[in-house]
């Protein structure tokens, strides 16, 4: 029941929000709804064991409304539930035309995301997978930047093709289940020949790889992040990319363990190429948003490489990093949005000296930047350390090459910090002021999360431990 509420609350709230009058009522309503969802998510997290919900849906097809929250599901619904109040608080001062539709679509996308993380029925999973996409498509196309229509459409076509290819895979698996059912267990139990398994693996993997995104499927991402309204970018990079990572762990690896092992080398090499390539491009970026976008590709690349090492430690790292990266990147977007709103530019070359004008922001930004570099004491360190550990055990040379990305991350992140908050004030940055209270509040929450989980990650590890061990017991 709790799991059902996690989806229904944002869904119903979203539908109600459409009918609200324009003005501030919509944003207050959305904020309250997201806080309510957070409360439910906290209840779910503190309920021990796997919780679930099951009801009849399409009997003739063998598909049920079946939800299941194990450790990983709980962790990601918590991430989703934490992110939305933060996002809504951070953009509280922004004025959107048609505000009620904007917040309604945001809430609907939250419902879709929750559904993806909780569904344990393949057809239901596919439904939510699309439900998360459609609102984001409208959000970006209506409220985005000037090139929004073409860019968002590219994003949409990419992911839609991916979904359709996955649909073929779903159909094939479904028709091969023993009991003609879409349930997760039946899908796990399907026996395929080695060749079939390999074909199915790639059908699913391409869909997930586009979503993450992994090199060479990433080309939609920087443009989409740059052009979307920042609130949506936060959803996309903080949570939506985790859909791909999550789907690999929940669906792909248990369904096709042999094909995954067989293709691991190729996937890891692609991921590492993506990491290095994205890091190098990030160094050359002048636009803060684009820099964060590329840095995000690099981080996801590491997660995707670690997932395929077939190593329990690395998988623990992926779990922690999914949460950490989600929180950290939202923090960075908030700062980027703030700078753009205040100063009208996102180009680092035009900024400088903000530490003098906004010392609080400077301190918070430095901490988040250090987390982006994965320095010890920040939450990202734990995740990256565990993932590199697993990668090292898998293949030393690959780990060494991937390790370069840590150095590159330091280069582009610290370069950004230096250009934005240190140096001399110039004509543009003269008019900067200290950040407003609501944004200080959200950033402080993020920084607290960074430090707490950086010092004591055990609760997260305990939470997702059952999912990880289940994955490895199966094999």
């Amino acid at each position, binding site marked *: 029941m709790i799991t059902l509420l996690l989806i229904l609350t944002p869904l119903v709230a979203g539908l109600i929000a459409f009918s609200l009058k324009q003005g501030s009522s919509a944003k207050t309503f959305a904020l309250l709804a997201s806080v309510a969802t957070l409360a439910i998510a906290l209840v779910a997290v503190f309920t021990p064991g796997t919780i679930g919900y099951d009801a009849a*849906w*399409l*009997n*003739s097809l063998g598909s049920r409304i079946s939800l299941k929250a194990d450790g990983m599901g709980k962790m990601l619904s918590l991430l989703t539930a934490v992110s939305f109040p933060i996002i809504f608080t951070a953009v509280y001062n922004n004025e959107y035309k048609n505000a009620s539709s904007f917040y309604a679509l945001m809430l609907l996308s939250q419902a879709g995301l929750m559904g993806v993380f909780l569904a344990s029925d393949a057809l239901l999973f*596919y*439904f939510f997978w*699309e*439900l998360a996409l*459609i609102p984001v498509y*409208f959000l970006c*196309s*209506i409220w985005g930047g000037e090139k*929004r*229509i073409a860019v968002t*459409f590219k994003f*949409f*076509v990419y992911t*839609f*093709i991916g979904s*359709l*290819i996955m*649909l*073929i895979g779903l*159909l*094939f698996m*479904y*028709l091969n289940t023993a009991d003609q059912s879409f349930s997760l267990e039946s899908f796990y139990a399907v026996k395929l020949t080695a060749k079939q398994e390999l*074909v199915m693996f790639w059908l699913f993997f391409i869909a997930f790889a586009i979503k993450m995104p992994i090199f060479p499927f990433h080309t939609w991402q920087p443009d989409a992040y740059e052009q979307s309204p920042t609130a949506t970018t936060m959803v996309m990079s903080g949570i939506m990319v985790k859909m791909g990572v999550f789907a690999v762990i929940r669906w792909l690896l248990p369904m096709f363990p042999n094909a995954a092992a067989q293709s691991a080398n190729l996937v890891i090499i692609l991921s590492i190429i993506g990491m290095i390539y994205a890091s190098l491009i990030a160094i050359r970026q002048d636009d803060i948003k684009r820099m964060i976008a590329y840095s995000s590709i690099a981080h996801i690349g590491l997660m995707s490489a670690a997932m395929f090492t077939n190593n329990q430690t690395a998988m623990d790292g992926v779990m922690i990093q999914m949460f950490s990266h989600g929180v950290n990147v939202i923090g960075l977007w908030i700062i980027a949005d703030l700078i753009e709103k205040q100063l009208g530019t996102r180009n680092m070359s035009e900024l400088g000296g903000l530490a003098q004008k906004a010392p609080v922001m400077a301190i918070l930004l430095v901490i988040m930047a250090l987390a982006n570099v994965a320095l010890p004491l920040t939450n990202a360190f734990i995740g990256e350390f565990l993932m590199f550990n697993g990668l090292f055990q898998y293949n030393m040379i690959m780990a060494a090459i991937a390790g370069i990305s840590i150095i590159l991350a330091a280069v582009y992140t610290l370069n950004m910090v230096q250009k934005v908050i240190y140096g001399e004030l110039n004509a543009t940055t003269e008019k900067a002021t200290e950040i407003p209270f609501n944004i200080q509040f959200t950033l402080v929450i993020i920084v607290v999360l960074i430090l707490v989980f950086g010092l004591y990650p055990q609760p997260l590890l305990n939470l997702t431990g059952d999912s990880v061990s289940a994955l490895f017991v199966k094999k």
Partner: protein
Amino acid sequence: MNAIIFSAILGVVMMFTGIFTNKKPVITLTAIIALVVLLTANLMNSYGIFSIQIDTKELLHFNKIGLFFNSLIIGATLIFVLLSGSEIEKLGNKTADYYALIFFVLCGTAILTSYNGMLMLFLGIEILSIPLYILTGSDKHNLKSNEASLKYFLMGSFTTGIMLMGIALLYGATGTFGMASVGTGALPPSSGVQGPAFLQVAGLLLLFAAMCFKVSAAPFHFWTPDVYDGAPSVFTSFMATIVKAAGFFAFIKLFSANANLLGPTWNILLSFVIVATLLAGNITAVFQRSIKRMLAYSSIAQAGFMLFALYSNNDLGTEGILLYTVAYCLATIGFFAILMKVKDYTFDGFNGLASTQPVLAFVATICLLSLAGIPLTAGFFAKYYMLASVVKAGGPLWMVIVAVLFAAVSAYYYFKVIQAMYFKEGQPETSEITGGFKFGLVLVAAGILLVGVLPSIVLNWFYF
């Protein structure tokens, strides 16, 4: 039998309505009542409450699926008249005649859902087609409409000739017009012919070509864009949905019994037609400037998907074609109803519709999402069943992959309309829109979403 008899009688009744009254809304109202009567009669037949019994010497055979399909077709026509009746009224002074012709088309579809022999198939196709030639040309003072009508008539008659030729060859080979005997090959053993005779294969191929023409499958689709574009929009909507669905039903019925005669050639032939149809429809639709023409090509593309039911020839395929009919008819009729309210049929003509007419834009979006096959809409399950039936029948995976890639292409041109409505600025001119019309549209959208979440509603009704 009820549907055939009632539709013929009601067609005549509609013709006489024109004598007694000139008030067009009255005529439309009569037509709506007549459709309700027809639907009731057909439903009574399907539930076995009341049916007229005539010994047709097994020329017609009524079964559950055929009767159910009749109900779908009549229901779709009812929705069509409710939404677009006012547009029919705008086409000259012959409103009653147009409705009469629609009823004759329904008579043809009722024969096509129950035929049990080549003769009745031929009669059904002709009763269906001839009123359509007239309806296409009903905008008398419009040159494009005349051209479309003539083109349709000439090409349609030519195809009828091919079809008759095919039937004649089959008759020559088997000595009967019956369906079953065609399928089993009734040649006497003394003839010494092993397997299907040459005449039989040739006859079936000719029939195949003729049926491909009727459902606008490539490479026999060239008439479709011109006719759909030239015909008055209101009748394009009718032709593209109701008539096409009936054609598919007849097509599938014919070849599910006889395809085995062609052996493995059949699958090769059909895969070629499917891929060609998807290719021709989707790729050409991408380049259209007029939304009406885009819809004409997209209807070819949708036909490609419907052909999967013919390929798979199993239960899932049958359920799929029923669901596809519902999904496709609802979405297309709904979208055409909106299109007719907008003055400018180009993509730019839709710019900014969301701000001036939010309800219309919303319903149009739902219809387009359904046509593109996005989950939560009826169109998703329609496509889903089609793909599932082919995978289940052991069809080649490459064909399924090609199909979904083309589905992605179709999203491109459907979304172009959504982009115009929501993301671009403009002041589209629309004709007057009544509250009742909006209400009807919202019901259509609700229907699409309902079937999209619970497709079992339609299927349970079928398996009552």
